[in-house]
């Protein structure tokens, strides 16, 4: 299945909910609306066979957070969806691909996105004593006093 066939298949299945597609050699980037996020993933994994989650990237873009699972073993399909920063919630995909668990936990740690339905959304990357509600990769992450390294020891 080549790049264009994938995006066509998705477009015909989800219609207007596919906002934008971009393809290059063995890379497909698709922008989708959040409400079909899980359906798109399920369709990709179960119908089209993209059953490998390479990773999930999260980027803070102003008022939104962009969540991008990268799927596939040959062609990489990057599904992009935007969620609001004030209410960062998205349904989990661990029930479809259990291996996505670590990546969702990572994003939960650094961006504070809650993956609804995740069985074990605990710390994986940040230390135990990191304060609740502080998400280091958000752009509005407000600083306290920066401590120069030399005085710490």
């Amino acid at each position: 299945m080549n790049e264009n066939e994938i995006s066509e298949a998705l477009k015909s299945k989800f219609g207007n909910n596919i906002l934008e597609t971009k393809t290059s050699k063995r890379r497909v980037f698709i922008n989708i609306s959040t409400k079909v996020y899980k359906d798109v993933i399920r369709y990709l994994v179960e119908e089209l066979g993209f059953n490998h989650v390479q990773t999930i990237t999260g980027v803070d873009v102003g008022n939104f957070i962009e969540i991008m699972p990268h799927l596939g073993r040959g062609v990489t399909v990057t599904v992009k969806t935007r969620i609001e920063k004030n209410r960062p919630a998205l349904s989990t995909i661990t029930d479809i691909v259990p291996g996505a668990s670590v990546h969702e936990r990572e994003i939960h740690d650094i961006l504070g996105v809650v993956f609804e339905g995740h069985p074990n959304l605990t710390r994986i990357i940040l230390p135990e004593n990191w304060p609740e509600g502080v998400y280091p990769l958000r752009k509005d992450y407000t600083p306290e006093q920066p401590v120069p390294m030399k005085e710490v020891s």
Partner: protein
Amino acid sequence: MNIVKWARLKSPWLLHFNTGACNACDIEVLAALTPRYDLERFGALLKASPRHADVLVVTGPVTRQVKDRLLRVYNQMPDPKFVVAVGTCCISGGVFNGCYNVYPGLDSVIPVDAYIFGCPPKPEAIINGVVALLKKLEGS
């Protein structure tokens, strides 16, 4: 030269501690034990327990999280003990210099006796460093 000092110089047992290195230095330290280089010529053995070691060979930038463990291992070593910092990022942070999670060099955490420069240093350079340290001790 008295016999205790002689024995100390001839039997430097190493403990290797990685404080967050990129592994390149570690594999070079390990390589220094293998047939081509064979640190055992100098009586050096790689020991697993800090209680048995004389020389702490540290590689990698000292990260915040590892600092306590490093101190603990250092304290578990019986006196007299020596510390060798291997690799740029152990000496000063190197490429991670100034990063928020990294101390500016091993010497800001524990006293260091010898530095081996390189990123990573050749196993020969490591041997050279160990020999230099032993020579210095011989003179002192």
